[in-house]
């Protein structure tokens, strides 16, 4: 409304947007983004086709998540390391010592045989990694 009335007056008002603090604002945002970013650290050797599910939760803190990929051929990868079934427990145990709040996120392909997943779960139990999650896509 103010601008309309100003126009109606006819005389031109000099409008200056103060830009001197713009860089401060931009840098503040920039630093905020740098600090909050968690870079994608690990990529799977065999990207899985995740199953779909309805009752999924969002796992909030990426820093507490260890990714465990299982390919249909039974190749297991924990974060950056390709491991055997026997090495699952020691690897997860080491990660748990660094971060006791660790959640192991099982990212298994939907064609993987259940026996493979069950073996991995049993190994996780042995390593006391009791907080796990099955990665799934939303059904929408």
């Amino acid at each position, binding site marked *: 409304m103010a601008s309309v009335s100003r126009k109606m007056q006819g005389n031109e008002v000099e409008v200056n947007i103060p*830009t*001197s603090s*713009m*860089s401060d*604002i*931009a*840098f503040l*945002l*920039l630093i905020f*983004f*740098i600090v909050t*970013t968690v*870079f*994608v650290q690990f990529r799977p050797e065999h990207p899985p086709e995740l*199953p779909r*599910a*309805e*009752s*999924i*939760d*969002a*796992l*909030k803190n*990426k820093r507490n*998540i260890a990714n465990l990929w299982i390919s249909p051929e039974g190749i297991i990868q924990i974060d950056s390391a390709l491991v055997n*079934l026997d090495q699952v427990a020691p690897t997860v145990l080491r990660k748990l010592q660094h971060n006791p709040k660790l*959640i192991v*996120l*099982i990212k*298994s*392909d*939907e*064609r*993987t*045989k*259940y*026996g*493979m*997943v*069950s*073996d991995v*779960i*049993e190994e*996780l*139990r*042995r390593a*006391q*990694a*009791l*907080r*796990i*999650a*099955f*990665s*799934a*896509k*939303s059904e929408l």
Partner: protein
Amino acid sequence: MMMGKKPVEASAEIPTSSMSDIAFLLLVFFIVTTSMSQDKGIGTTLPPPGEPLPIPKENIASVWINNRGDVALKMMGRDFVTVSLPQLRELVEQRIIQNPNLVVSILAQKEADYKTFIDVFDEIRLAGSPHDWSKISIAQPPGARSGP
């Protein structure tokens, strides 16, 4: 900005007008390279290793998944019945209303697809309270490596 005029003043100004451009450029770069994708999944808590807790038989509903991906449900006093996924959810829902302490045990055979397992797990979680993870147990398939 009317300041007292001094006789000789060398202008020593850093040009700051393009500073915001630089900052925004960096900002946009960071926003673009950041992966905002959140991990999503079905969370659960495994029982600690050791002897399984004894559960009274009347509180157990077993769900079996065979190698072909058929799903069967057994509840107290009844035989196994093959069910479809929506039926499974309905039956388990009814059963939970009758008995809030119901523990659903999922037993899948080794050659079953992981997809079927997740489908069943999902349905059971939807049937019960989705955030009560303790009422679903994952049984070891026959012929699995020996437990702890």
